[in-house]
């Protein structure tokens, strides 16, 4: 099975110059925990998560009304390809101890593959990813 068969194609994104309060509101309203950070040309610049906002910005006393997303986003985004096999994608997640990959197609962001998506296709692959993931207890 290929990544494109099970990935989530609905990509929520935000601009790098948006402030953290706006990003937090958007994640809260959409009931999501992460967003792609993309520039005007649709190029993927990074990922921002609810945890980045609370644990890295708020914890350090940054003001969410004037701190831009690009200051706290993760720039080094782990990716896989849409036509890769899902077992290869699971291996990438395991090796990097993460639960989500950005899916690229022709150098453009075309979706996300999470361990939840993986669970729908293979409980063994999803289980292995969870066991390898960095625990956030």
């Amino acid at each position, binding site marked *: 099975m290929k990544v494109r068969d099970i990935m989530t194609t609905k990509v929520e994104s935000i601009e790098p110059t948006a402030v953290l309060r706006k990003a937090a509101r958007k*994640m809260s309203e959409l009931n999501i925990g992460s967003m792609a950070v993309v520039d005007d040309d649709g190029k993927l610049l990074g990922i921002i998560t609810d945890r980045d906002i609370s644990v890295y910005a708020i*914890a350090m006393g940054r003001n969410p009304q004037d701190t831009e997303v690009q200051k706290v986003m993760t720039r080094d985004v782990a990716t896989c390809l849409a036509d890769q096999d899902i077992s290869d994608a699971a291996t990438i997640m395991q090796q990097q101890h993460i639960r989500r990959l950005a899916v690229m197609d022709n150098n453009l962001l075309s979706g996300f593959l999470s361990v939840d998506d993986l669970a729908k296709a293979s409980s063994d692959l999803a289980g292995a990813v969870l066991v390898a993931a960095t625990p956030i207890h």
Partner: protein
Amino acid sequence: MKVNEIMNTKVQSTTPLATTKEAARQMHDIHVGCLTVMEGERLVGILTDRDICCKVTATGRDAGFTKVHEIMTTDVATCFPEQGVEEAAEIMMKAQVRRLAVVDHDSRITGFLSVDDLARASHQLASSVLESSTTYH
């Protein structure tokens, strides 16, 4: 297999009157995403990194002045240490959560059981929990 064989017994806690900024800082320093809120020996709630993002930052509140008790979740999903892991997985599925507080019969908290812990016991159970829970990308 029983919950107490795979649960995480390291319980990190905060207090209802701590500020959410202090709680965020604690989550940062000890690399956790969830704190128990204790009033003396009594478990009164749970606070996650996402709570701080969605209930403080998103709504424009000041984390330095917002207390933990104002935003914590008081309706905590729990299981018993001697329960079977299958039962614990069922509780997670019904409550639509990925983490349970493990409490003994005197209502004392003895640990946490996450879907990650579950994956170490059974890929199948962990995957079922992921599949049944609200997708959270």
